[in-house]
C-alpha cells in the first residue's frame, strides 16, 4: 500500500529548543493512525508542520508523494484537517463558510456540500450564523469542511473535544467509514486513550520530540502486558484470601472489600474457581482484567508528571 503521509527525519526547533527531533513514520491509505504523547511532546508541532502552519527545519514531509516544500499546492490539496478547535467566520453561516472553502478547491460541487452536511448531521441548522452554534455543532462543521474536497489524508487534532458521548461515537463511526469505504488515511492525535483504542489500527507514541514506537494497538497492549489478571468477586473476601493464600499467595495482586485480583489465566482460573466454590465461598463473578492502553502508554512514556 502506498504511503499517503511520509515524514522523513523531520526536525523543528523553537529558538534553541529542539521540539521535534528527527522523527520518521508513514501512514497508508485506509488506515486510522493514532498519534499519542504527553503534553509538550511535540504532537501539535508535528501536525502543524504537516499542515503548512510551520516551516520544517530539517527533513521532508511527503503527502501523496508530493513534497510539501517543493509542490506545496499539490501536496496540500490532498489534506483536510482540524487543528485544535475549528474556527470559522462567526458572522457568516455554516453554509457560507463551506462555500468559501469549496471555492478554494477544485471540483467541489454543490451536491458534495449537501452530501457532507448530511453526513455530519447538520442539515437543519447549516444556514444559521456560526456564532449561534454550540461547540459540538462547530466541530461537526469543522469536520464537514475538512472532508469537503475528498482529501486522501485527514488530520485531526483532539477531534472529540466538546462532543457529547453520542457525538463521540458518531465521529468514530464516520472516521471508520471514511477509512474503510473511501480509503482515506486518518491521522488522529488525542488524549482520549479509550477512544484511540477503539478507532486506531496503528499508533505512534511520541515523547520529548522523539518517536518512541510505531505499532498496532494489539502489539502495544501485548508488549505492555506483563501478566493476565483475573478478578474474583468473592464473599466473604477474608475467608477467600485465607483459602487461596497457601497455594496462590504469591499471585495475589490486589485485595479489596469486594474482590481479589490474581495473576492467573486459562486452567488456573478454573482451578481457583473450583477451590473457592468447594470451600463454600460465594462467587459473585470472575472477569479478566485487560491491561489498558493507559497502562501501556504511561509505562512507555515514563509516566512523569512534569512537562517535557
Amino acid at each position, binding site marked *: 500500500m502506498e504511503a499517503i503521509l511520509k515524514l522523513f527525519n523531520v526536525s523543528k526547533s523553537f529558538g534553541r529548543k529542539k521540539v521535534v527531533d528527527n522523527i520518521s513514520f508513514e501512514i497508508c491509505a485506509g488506515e486510522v493512525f493514532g498519534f499519542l504523547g504527553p503534553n509538550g511532546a511535540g504532537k501539535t508541532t508535528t501536525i502543524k508542520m504537516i499542515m503548512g*502552519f510551520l516551516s520544517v527545519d530539517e527533513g521532508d514531509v511527503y503527502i501523496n508523494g508530493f513534497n510539501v516544500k517543493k509542490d506545496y499546492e499539490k501536496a496540500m490539496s490532498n489534506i483536510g484537517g482540524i487543528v485544535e478547535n475549528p474556527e470559522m467566520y462567526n458572522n457568516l453561516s455554516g453554509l457560507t463558510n463551506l462555500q*468559501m472553502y469549496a471555492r478554494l478547491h477544485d471540483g467541489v460541487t454543490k451536491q458534495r456540500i449537501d452530501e457532507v452536511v448530511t453526513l455530519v448531521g447538520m442539515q437543519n441548522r447549516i444556514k444559521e450564523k456560526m456564532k449561534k452554534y454550540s461547540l459540538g455543532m462547530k466541530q461537526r462543521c469543522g469536520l464537514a469542511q475538512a472532508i469537503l474536497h475528498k482529501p486522501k489524508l485527514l488530520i485531526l487534532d483532539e477531534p472529540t473535544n466538546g462532543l457529547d458521548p453520542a457525538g463521540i461515537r458518531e465521529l468514530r463511526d464516520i472516521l471508520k467509514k471514511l477509512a474503510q469505504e473511501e480509503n482515506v488515511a486518518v491521522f488522529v492525535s488525542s488524549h482520549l486513550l479509550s477512544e484511540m483504542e477503539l478507532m486506531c489500527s496503528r499508533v505512534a507514541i511520541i515523547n520529548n520530540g522523539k518517536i518512541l514506537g510505531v505499532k498496532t494497538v494489539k502489539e502495544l497492549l501485548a508488549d505492555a502486558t506483563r501478566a493476565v489478571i483475573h478478578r474474583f468477586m468473592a464473599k466473604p473476601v477474608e475467608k477467600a484470601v485465607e483459602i487461596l493464600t497457601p497455594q496462590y499467595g504469591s499471585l495475589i495482586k490486589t485485595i479489596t472489600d469486594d474482590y481479589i485480583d490474581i495473576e492467573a489465566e486459562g486452567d488456573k482460573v478454573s482451578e481457583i474457581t473450583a477451590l473457592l466454590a468447594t470451600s463454600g465461598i460465594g462467587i459473585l463473578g470472575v472477569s479478566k482484567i485487560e491491561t489498558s492502553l493507559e497502562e501501556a502508554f504511561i509505562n512507555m512514556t515514563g509516566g512523569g508528571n512534569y512537562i517535557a
Partner: protein
Amino acid sequence: MRKLIALYTNEMIKISRKISVIIILGIMIIGVIGFGGLMKLQVSMNPGNNNYLSQNMQFQKEEMDRQLDSFKGRLSEIKQQKASATGADLMNLESEERSIQNQIDKLQYAKTMDIILFSSSYRAQAIEMLFNYKETVNQLNSMPAASLTQEQKKQLEDAGNYISRLEKAIKNKDFKEYISVSNDQINNNTFISTEEKKISLESNELRLKYNLKGEENSFPNSMDSLIWQIESGKRSLLYNIDYTSQTQKPLSSELREKIKNGVAVNVYKIEKGIIGKNSNTGMNPEELAMPGMVGFGSFMLVILVMILAGGSISQEISTGSIKSLIISPTKRWKIFIAKVVSLLTIGIIGALLLYIVAILTNGAFFGFGSGTPYVYAVNGVAKELGFNIYQFAKLFAGFIDIMLYMTFALMLSIVTRNTAASVGISIAVFFGGSIVNSFLPLFAKGEWLKFIPFNNLSFSTRLFPYDTLNQIMDQGSSGMVSVVNNSILFSLCYIAVLIFCMGYTAFDSFNRRDI
C-alpha cells in the same frame, strides 16, 4: 489565477458582512448629508449678504450724514474764526474753508445722486475724482489770473474738461465715459512708465468689456480684487519682482511661471464670469458645502480603511480562522494579494459612494448646475475643468494618502498580529503626525524635513493649486502652512517608495513566519 479570484471573492464576502464596515459607511453618508444640510441652513438663515448688505448700506449712509454734519460744524467754526483773523492765518482759513466746502458739496452731491461714497461702484469713484478736480479748480481760481503759469493754465483747462465729462458720466450712468476719462488720466500721467500705463489700460479694457462696474450690491467686490491681482501679477512679471505676496523677492523661473499662469487664470475667470459669490474670503456656506462634505467623508474613509487593514491578518490569527486559509492549498502570497486587493476595492467603493452622495446632496440643496468649475493654466494658457469632474479628481487625488495609511496599518497588522495595536497606532499617526509635523519647523531645520511623509501628502491640494478655498480648508485642518515645498514628482516617488517598502515588509513577514 482562478485561486486568486476565489480568494478575493471570499475576502469581499467577509468584508461586506462586517458590521463595522456598514456602520462607518453609514456614518459617512449621514455626516455628508448632514453637513450639506447645515450649510444650506446657514444660507437660508442669512438670505444673502443682502441682509448684511442693506444693513451695511444703512450704516454707510448714516456715516455720510455724520461726516456732513461734522464738516458743517467745522465750516461755521471757520466762519467765526475768519471774523477775527488776519494775514497768513486768514489765507489759511480761507483755503481750509474752500476745501471743507468742497467736501460738503461732494457729500451732498452724492446724496442727491443716491450714491454711497465709500463703495467701490464706479460712480462713487467718479464723484471722488470729480470733486478732486473741483478742488484743484477752486484753488487755481483763488489765485490772481495773471499769476498763473502756462502749466497751471493747462491744468485748469484740463480739470474743467474732466469735470464736465465726469458730471455727464455720473448723471447718465455712463460707464463707458467714465472708463474713457480714466484712460485719459492714465495716458496723461507723466509719473508712470509706458509699460505701467499699458497694464492699467488693459485693466480698464477688461472692466469695460465685461461691464465690471463695481455696483453697490456686490460686496465685497470680488471683481475689483481679481483685477488688482491681475495687475500686481503683470507688474511682477514686468519688474521681475514678486509683488503678489508680501515678500517682494526677485522672481525665479518657477515663480515666474506660476504668476503668469495665475494672471491667465484670473483673466479667464473674468471673461467667463466664473466668480464664486465671495471667492476671495471663501467663507460663504454655499462654497464650503462641497469641500466640507468631501473632507468629512474622506476622513471617515481613512478611518474605515485603517480599521479594516489593521485587523485584516491579526484578527484572523486571533480568532483562529486563519487556519482554514492556511490549510487550503494556496500559497501564502496569493492570500496576501487577495487581501490587499480587497482592501483597495473597499476603499474605491467607499470613495465612489462618497462622491455620489456628495454630488447628489450638493445638487439637491444648492442646485445641480451651481458648482463653479476649476480654472487652471498651463504655460500661460487658461483651461477649465467641469465642477463634477474636478470634485472627482480631487477626491481620488486624496486616495493616494489613503493608500499610504492602508499599507501602514496592514504592515502593522501582520508584524504585530495585534488588531488593537495596529489600528491604534495607525490612527495615532494619522492624527498626531500631521499636528506634530506642523510644529516641527519651529524647532528643526534642515534637508531631512523633506523626507517626513506628512510633507509629501495632501495631493488633493497640491495638484489643484488654483483653488484658493482648497488652500484655506487645508490650512484650517492642519493648522499651518507647510514650510517644506517639495515638487509633486518628488512626493509621488517618495510615497511610492514608502508604500513599496511597507508592503514588502508586510508581504515577507506573512510569507515566512510561523503561525
